[in-house]
């Protein structure tokens, strides 16, 4: 760790970083607000088609205009935000369960279980995540739940390896050795001594995985193997709009802008969390 020179060097970056965190909070807050209140605000049906209003620019009734089928872009964007955030958060939770929790249980259960389970993670890691999720999704069928599970499996190894790294660091700690000497069962050592220390590492990692899960969901839906056509996630909206981009550019630009803003927000948040979780660099984050 190079402490002093780095601090001196990047002293100015600290303020940029905290501003970044503020930007992230504003974007995420806006997204949550849009997801919760958006559909009620516009009072329109995201699926209602109105061919007469196809490709119309923004108006008092349709704040962001209408897409090629005359559907209200704002309402679709709001419902899409809700679905997209839900899938991404649920998929990350699934990845934590499949990766960190299963991985730790396997580690606690002994050498053979660890080898087998981590061998599985290595297989998953040796595949491009988008290709793996594609294959899994076709196997599981379309829909929100399979989508969540497929993305969860694809990102599970990341959490498994974080969990193992923390476990290895913690298991050499004095209090874990003391618990062992007192013949505490492995699972109780895991839950009472290691898990609390794991929390920060997992949260930091989650901030990296959530935006990737959002992108993966969008790409899969764009490819037409994510959600069913009646479900307006951002990826689905993009897939619909890309063919009509010349006549209804806002229908494409809005979900792309939303996707970019949310990944940016999570990137800034993750950066902040990473610095905040490292006590040696905490001073820099302020």
């Amino acid at each position, binding site marked *: 760790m*190079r402490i002093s*020179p780095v601090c001196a060097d990047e002293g100015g*970056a600290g303020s940029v970083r905290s501003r970044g965190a503020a930007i992230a909070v504003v974007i995420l807050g806006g997204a949550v607000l849009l997801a919760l209140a958006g559909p009620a605000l516009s009072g329109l049906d995201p699926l209602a088609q109105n061919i007469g209003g196809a490709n119309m620019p923004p108006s008092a009734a349709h704040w962001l205009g209408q897409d090629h089928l005359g559907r209200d872009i704002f309402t679709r964007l709001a419902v899409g935000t809700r679905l997209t955030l839900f899938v991404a958060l649920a998929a990350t939770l699934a990845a934590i369960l499949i990766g960190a929790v299963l991985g730790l249980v396997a580690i606690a259960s002994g050498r053979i279980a660890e080898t087998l389970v981590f*061998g599985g993670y*290595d*297989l998953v890691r*040796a*595949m*491009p*995540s*988008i*290709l793996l999720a*594609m*294959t*899994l999704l*076709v*196997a599981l*069928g379309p829909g929100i739940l399979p989508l969540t599970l497929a993305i969860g499996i694809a990102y599970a190894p990341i959490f498994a390896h974080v969990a193992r790294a923390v476990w290895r660091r913690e298991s050499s700690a004095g209090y874990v050795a003391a618990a062992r000497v007192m013949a505490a069962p492995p699972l109780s050592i895991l839950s009472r001594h290691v898990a609390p220390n794991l929390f920060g590492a997992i949260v930091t990692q989650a901030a990296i995985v959530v*935006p*990737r899960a959002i*992108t993966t969901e*969008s*790409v899969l839906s*764009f*490819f*037409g*193997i994510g959600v069913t056509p009646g479900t307006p996630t951002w990826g689905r909206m*993009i897939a619909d709009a*890309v063919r009509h*981009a*010349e006549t209804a*550019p806002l229908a*494409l*630009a809005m979900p*792309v802008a939303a*996707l*970019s803003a949310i*990944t*940016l927000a999570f*990137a*800034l948040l*993750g*950066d902040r969390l990473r610095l905040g979780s490292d006590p040696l660099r905490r001073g820099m984050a302020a």
Partner: protein
Amino acid sequence: MTRGFAGSGAALLRHGAVVCAIAVVMFFLIRVIPGDVVDVLAAEGDLSDSEIAALRAELGLDRGVAAQFVAWLAAAARGDLGLSIRFERPVAEMIWFAVPGTLALAAKALAIGLTLGIGLAAAAVIWPRRVFVWLVNAVNLWSIALPTFCVGLAAILIFSIWLGWLPVLGQATLPAIVIGIDIAGQLAKPLHEDLKEIAAAPFVRAARARGQSRATIVFRHLLPNAAPVAIALSGLILAGLIGGTLTMEVLFGLPGLGTVALQAILGRDYPVVQAVILVFALAIVLVNALTDLCQRALDPRLRHD
């Protein structure tokens, strides 16, 4: 780590095992998919029940999954990847025609990414007070915050629709730039950190004291010592490259493995899906093995143990 020929042999075996395991797992996973290619064909055209049964028998889909696996394995061992069920062409031939497109895009993107990433990192070390340090951070934030999917879509929107410059679809320059910037962002920041540390080392000061030019110091002393960091990042870069290439191909309508994979998955064309996955797994394992070799060649400490 005990490394020698025995070490490389063991590593090779492990890499081989991973490829085999992926082939096996994928074979069975794909066959869990409800509905096979015959269902898809039947939905597209009128097929009588007897025709459906005959088609299944001809394709070997009426046999048990285990029997299908043995047949596939035996053929694959002979280098025969089978026939595409939908296109009735040899899978090997389809892959063979798709690979150049993907490789060309990947090579272009990699060339752009490496040039930009290494160039920015080196420039930021040579001229720390100029704009380059800011650029290194900017391109890093860019690659973290903006997925290639978004950038690609934005590029289509801006260049082909709003500016109307060029027919964006079907040409590979724009997607290569999009992926290249992404790679540069992942590479430039860690490389810059590493170069800064090396630049502060006594042997660099000694070189400077001997009156060597900046170019000599950068090319003879700095960059070779930063190579291990760059190579250690190759896994990350490869993942970005593969994911980016797959997405960009479909987005920009380019011929290549990504397009073939998507069509095959949507059409339940099992032999093609298997072959594409195998090709990617082989590529990933090959790069991992090469990374291992390069690290040992560049870092003498890893050679003698």
